[in-house]
């Protein structure tokens, strides 16, 4: 699809880098940020598939928590979230579980892929379903202990 293509670059947010998520003395994992890849926002229920790869390795779905609108969701819950609107400018925080996190200052290839339905496009019956992908090199800078 020629339309929408340019927005794929929004998916992996480069600005925030990677931050480790620390609880007490334990680093539970790391946080990366993502933005919905379109000119407008959408409902999480329109996201059919969402995958994350770090340094080429796919993160298992059960090791990712998706934080948006002051709430947190499992990827498997997306299909039911028809009242959760992902606003155009909002960066969702993705907490990836990894004991010890990632090394401060190290750089990683973060890739995200998303299959998402454009909910207003049923012009001739079928909805447009886009495959968006984006990859950026992100550096680990700092840590947080709350989202």
């Amino acid at each position, binding site marked *: 699809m020629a339309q929408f293509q340019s927005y794929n670059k929004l998916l992996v947010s480069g600005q925030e880098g990677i931050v480790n998520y620390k609880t007490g003395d334990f680093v539970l994992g790391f946080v990366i940020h993502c*933005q919905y890849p379109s000119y407008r926002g959408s409902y999480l229920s329109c996201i059919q598939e969402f995958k994350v790869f770090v340094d080429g390795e796919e993160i298992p779905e059960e090791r990712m928590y998706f934080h948006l609108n002051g709430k947190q969701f499992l990827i498997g819950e997306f299909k039911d979230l028809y009242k959760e609107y992902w606003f155009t400018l909002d960066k969702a925080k993705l907490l990836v579980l990894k004991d010890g996190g990632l090394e401060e200052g190290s750089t990683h290839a973060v890739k995200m892929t998303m299959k998402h339905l454009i909910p207003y496009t049923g*012009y001739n019956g079928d909805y447009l379903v886009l495959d968006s992908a984006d990859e950026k090199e992100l550096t680990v800078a700092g840590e947080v202990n709350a989202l």
Partner: protein
Amino acid sequence: MNRQIELSLTLYALSGEYTTGKYSLEDCLRAAHEMGYKGIELVACQMIPEYPYPSKKWMDEFVAMLKKYELEPVCYSAYIDMGTHPDRDLTREEIIESTLMDMTYAKYMGFHLVRTQHAISPQIFREMRPYAEKIGIRLAIEMHAPHNPEVPVWKEFLEIMKDSDGWLGVVPDFSIFAESPHRLHLIQAVEDFGCRPEKVDEIVAGHRAGTDEETLLAGDYTEAERKFIRDLFHDYGDGHAHLEWLDLVLPYTFYIHGKFWYLEEDGIDRTIPCDRILPIIRKSGFTGYMASEYEGHHFSDTIDAREQLGRWVRMSNRILDHC
């Protein structure tokens, strides 16, 4: 100067700047003012942070900004997100709820027009007419490619508009008149999708010469090039704009989406034949706003939208002032 047709800016034209954080909403409004626009269109699901339920506070701030930048709220663009639920389409109740609420938000912010979409269905569209009249908001369906006035459902919509005493209408989008690919589409085919440049030229020449889709697809092309062929026929039809469609929609037109993707410095749109479209609109007696709807941001993030908008405004004024 022709002032029968005023130019407005749909803030959507600045999507590239807005989504990347280069422009805030206020920057978009300031840009509209600086470029000389008198009115704006707001795409609700794009720029309202609490969408689909804008707060009073946000709306008050938005209205204050419109006043500050001397901009008239011309069109509130609503969506019918039929595919929100993975297992079913929106119900009648859900469509009515979102449409009614959009009309109230639009009213609160001082808009007189809500643009909705075809999925509203003829039946619900007709039922909204009393609300339109009571609230004092006109409701119009955008006619966007691949739709056109000859699509069966649109024949129904046009009949309903005809009997609505001016409360229900259409927003034609110039995408329905697109007849040949713009520069950004060709660059994208090569740079993003890996089509061979000489093959892209060959395909475009074939499309322009009237070769049909099946014949072109049978040529010696890669999968990316075959996809490009299918996109060409999807986006630009048989290569000839059906200007006769204007007569079918202009009597019920409340507002116009002056869609464009890329203009060269000479200010001639080679994708959408504005040189032939705008005189027909002018002669029809249409009065109201026509929005500059730059949409190249779907294809490239390296183009200066303001420069493109400037070219489009100059083109429109040149044509409208001489017909």
